């Protein structure tokens, strides 16, 4: 695997708390000494945030489909109306 991908893997382990305490300390020292690495860690954290937003939108879209299907079910709809009447 080329060095850039090894870096991605290492940063992932750091961000996702999958690094041992010693390795974490060494890595944090590297981040302090290397501006490029520091920027890469920031960018990768943002990437994970974006991924989370994307996943949440997908889940909401799936829920919306289920909700619309439920509203087509007469027994469910009648039950819902009974609750609010």
């Amino acid at each position: 695997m080329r060095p850039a991908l090894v870096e991605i893997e290492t940063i992932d382990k750091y961000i996702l708390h999958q690094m041992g305490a010693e390795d974490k300390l060494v890595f944090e020292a590297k981040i302090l000494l290397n501006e490029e690495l520091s920027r890469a860690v920031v960018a990768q954290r943002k990437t994970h945030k974006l991924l989370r937003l994307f996943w949440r939108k997908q889940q909401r879209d799936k829920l919306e489909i289920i909700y619309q299907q439920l509203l087509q079910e007469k027994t469910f709809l009648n039950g819902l109306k009974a609750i609010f009447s």
Partner: protein
Amino acid sequence: MQLLIAFYYDGLSMQDMARRFGFSGTRSATVQKHKCLEKVRAEVKKMESYETSIS
């Protein structure tokens, strides 16, 4: 993005990833996952430098 979602949020193993996305093995799946993350990260960096240049 689907590959990354499958790994980080659907909890698929590398073996399942290789099967679902048609990779030859777990090694290929791992490399492709890292490459996807690299591409998205590069776009994030591009956006950041654009935002810095216009602010």
